[in-house]
C-alpha cells in the first residue's frame, strides 16, 4: 500500500549503485579458483591419464561399471549434501539402505507385487527419516549424535528382520534392466538417467528456489535464518525425510541391482557419502557447497577406484589413496589460503575508499554456526 519505499530520496543513488562491482573477483578467478572446478579438472586429468596409461580404461565398459558401482553413493549424497549445507549431518543413510532392503525384500517375499513392495520400502525410509528429523528438530538433539544412534538402530532392525535369510529371486527382467547399458555399447547404465534426474531436481531446489536459499541461510546462521522468515525446523525436518526417502529408494535399487536383500546391504555407505560430499567442497560447517561439487567428489572417488582397480591394485592401497585425496584436497585449499593471505598482505595498498573493501578471506573464520 502506501509503503512505496521508492519515494525515499537519497543522494546520488545511481552514482553509488554504479560503483558496486557485481563480484569482488574477476570471472576467471571465480570460475577457476573453486573446489568444483578443481575436482572436475582432476577428474578429466585422471581420465586422460588413465586412458593413456591404464590398459582397457578407454572401453565403454569401464564407465558403465564405474557408474553402476557408484550409483548408490551418487544418489544418496544428494539429499545429504543439503543436510550438510544446513550444518546438520545424517550418518544413518547406509543403515536406511539396509532397512529399506529388508522391507522391500520381505514385502516381495510375502507376495506383494514388486512396485508396491518398492513403494512400501520407500515410505518406510521416509518414516525413519522423519524419526531422525523429529529427534533433531522437535526434541533438539544434535544430528551427529542422533544419527550415530539410528545408524545402529536401523541396521539392527534390518539385520534382525532378515536374520540369516537372503531374499533373492527378484525378476531377472528387472535386475537385468537395471544393470543394462542405456543402449548397446553405451558407456552408461540405465540408472544414469535416474541419477541425472534426481541430481537436477536437487540442484534446482538448492540453487534456484527460495527453499534452497533457506537451506543455505540455515547453515550460515540458523538464528539469522529464523529472523528472516525461514522455517528453520521445518526445512531441516523436510531434508531428513528427503534423505530417508532417497536412501530407501537407493536401497530398493541396490537390492535389485544385486538381486539380493540382506540386512548388511549398504554397510559403511555413510562415510563414503560424507567423503564424497566433503571432497566436493561442501563445508562441513554448513552454508557452503553445491550439488555439482558433491557429485563431482563422488565421481572423482569412483574414477580413482576404477583406475586403481584396473591397474590391478587392491583395496588396501585404494583406501589409502581415498584418504590421501581427501586430506590433499583440504590441505591444498588450506595452503592456497595461507599463501594468498601472505601474498596479499605484502601487496601494495591500492587505495582507500571503496577500493579498500575488497574481500579477503577472514583469517580467523571460525565456524560461525555453533
Amino acid at each position, binding site marked *: 500500500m502506501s509503503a512505496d519505499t521508492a519515494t525515499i530520496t537519497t543522494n546520488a543513488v545511481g552514482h553509488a549503485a554504479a560503483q558496486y562491482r557485481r563480484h569482488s573477483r574477476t570471472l576467471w578467478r571465480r570460475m577457476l579458483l573453486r573446489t568444483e572446478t578443481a575436482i572436475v579438472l582432476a577428474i578429466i586429468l585422471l581420465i586422460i591419464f588413465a586412458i593413456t596409461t*591404464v*590398459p*582397457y580404461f578407454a*572401453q565403454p*565398459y*569401464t564407465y558403465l*561399471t564405474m557408474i553402476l*558401482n557408484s550409483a548408490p553413493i551418487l544418489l544418496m549424497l544428494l539429499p545429504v549434501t543439503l543436510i550438510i549445507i544446513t550444518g546438520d549431518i545424517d550418518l544413518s543413510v547406509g543403515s536406511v539402505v539396509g532397512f529399506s532392503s529388508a522391507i522391500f525384500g520381505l514385502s516381495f517375499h510375502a507376495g506383494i507385487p514388486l512396485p508396491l513392495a518398492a513403494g512400501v520400502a520407500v515410505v518406510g525410509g521416509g518414516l525413519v527419516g522423519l524419526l531422525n528429523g523429529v529427534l533433531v528438530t522437535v526434541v533438539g538433539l544434535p544430528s551427529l549424535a542422533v544419527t550415530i544412534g539410528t545408524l545402529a538402530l536401523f541396521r539392527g532392525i534390518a*539385520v534382525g528382520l532378515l*536374520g*540369516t535369510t*537372503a531374499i*533373492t529371486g527378484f525378476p531377472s527382467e528387472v*535386475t*537385468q534392466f537395471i*544393470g543394462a547399458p542405456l543402449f548397446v555399447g553405451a558407456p552408461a547404465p540405465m540408472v544414469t538417467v535416474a541419477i541425472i534426474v534426481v541430481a537436477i531436481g536437487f540442484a534446482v531446489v538448492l540453487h534456484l528456489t527460495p527453499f534452497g536459499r533457506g537451506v543455505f541461510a540455515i547453515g550460515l546462521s540458523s538464528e539469522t535464518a529464523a529472523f528472516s522468515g525461514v522455517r528453520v525446523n521445518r526445512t531441516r525436518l523436510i531434508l531428513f525425510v528427503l534423505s530417508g526417502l532417497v536412501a530407501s529408494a537407493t536401497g530398493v535399487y*541396490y537390492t535389485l*541391482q*544385486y*538381486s*539380493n536383500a*540382506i*540386512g*548388511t*546391504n*549398504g*554397510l*559403511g555407505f555413510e562415510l563414503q557419502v560424507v567423503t564424497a560430499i566433503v571432497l566436493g567442497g561442501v563445508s562441513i560447517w554448513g552454508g557452503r557447497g553445491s550439488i555439482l561439487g558433491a557429485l563431482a567428489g563422488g565421481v572423482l572417488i569412483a574414477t580413482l*577406484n*576404477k583406475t586403481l*582397480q*584396473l*591397474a*590391478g*591394485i*587392491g*583395496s*588396501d*592401497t585404494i*583406501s589409502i589413496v581415498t584418504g590421501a585425496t581427501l586430506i590433499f584436497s583440504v590441505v591444498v585449499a588450506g595452503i592456497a589460503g595461507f599463501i594468498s593471505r601472505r601474498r596479499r598482505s605484502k601487496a601494495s595498498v591500492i587505495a582507500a575508499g571503496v577500493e579498500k573493501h575488497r574481500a579477503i578471506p577472514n583469517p580467523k573464520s571460525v565456524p560461525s554456526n555453533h
Partner: protein
Amino acid sequence: GCAAPTGGSTGTDAAGAGSLTVIPKSLGNKYFEASDKGAKAAADELGLDFSEVGPTSTGSADQVPFIQTAIQTGQKAIAIAANDPAAVCNDLKAAQDAGVKVVAFDTDTDCRDIFINQATVDGIAQGLVDLTSKHLGTAGGTIAILSGGANAANLNAWVDAMTALIEKEHPEITIAQVAYGEDVDQKAYQAAQGLMQSIPDLKAIIAPDTVSVKEAAHYLSDTPQFQGKVWVTGLGLPSEMATYVTSGVIEQFGLWNPEDLGYLATYAADALTQGTITGKEGDKFTAGKLGDFTVGAGGEVVLGPMFVFDKSNVGDFSF
C-alpha cells in the same frame, strides 16, 4: 602380501599361458591369505599369470569391481570366495559370457563353472557333530552353535546341515541357540560369554568359523569355571588354536588345509581354461601334488574329508 600390482603385464600377455585372478572374501583375512598362498604356489607351478585382489570389507557388492576388472583385463579365469553369492552373480555371469572361467571356492554361487568345496556340507556337519556327540556320549545334553556372519552362505549351510543331522540322529542333543560373532574378535568373545553364561547346563559349543571357535576357546581359557564343563569345537586355524589345544582347554577341532583349497582351485581353473574339463559331472583332472580329482554332481569338486586336529598334530601346520 596382498595387492601385487600386476596391471600392465596381466593385460598384455593374458593370451599366453593363462591368467588367474583370485578374489578372496576380503584382504587381510588369515584363512584366505592361506588359501591365496596355495593358489599362488599352484599358479607358479603352472606358469600362470596370477593376481590376488579384493576388497578390504565384506559388503555384499564389494567384490563386484574386482570381477569387472578381471573381465576387462582379459583374465582367463577367476577364482572367487563370494561374500554374497547372489550379489556377485550378475557380474560373474557377465564374466562367463566374456569367456572367463569362474571357479567358486569356499562358498558356492549359482553363476560358476565349478565349485571347489573344502569338504561337503554333509561331511563338515557330520564331522563336527560326530566330534561333539562322541564327547557328550549317550547322555547328550544342551549345546549351542556360534557362527560367524549371519549372511555367510557356507556357514549357514553347515549350521542347517548340523541342525538337521542332530534332529535326525541325535535326539539326546538339543541345540539351545545359534549365535553370531560377526567375524569380529570382540563380538565373538562376548557372544561366547553370553552363551556360556545364559544357557544353564551348556555342554558344548560348535563354532564352524575360525574367528568364533578361536574366541570361544579364548573365553574358555580365560574362565576356568567353565573349563571341563563346556566343550568347544569347530573349524579353526591350527596356528590360532595351538595355544588352547596345548593348554588343554580345547581337545579337538577340524579344518582342511586352506592352502590346499587355493591350490586345488587354481588347478581346476587351469583345467577349465585348457579345456581339459568343462565342469560337468565326471570330468577328471590332476591337481599337482594333490593328485587326481573328479568333478561330482552339480559341478562340485571336494577337497577331501575334514581333517581333525588335536594335541598330537596341531603344531605341525603353519596356517
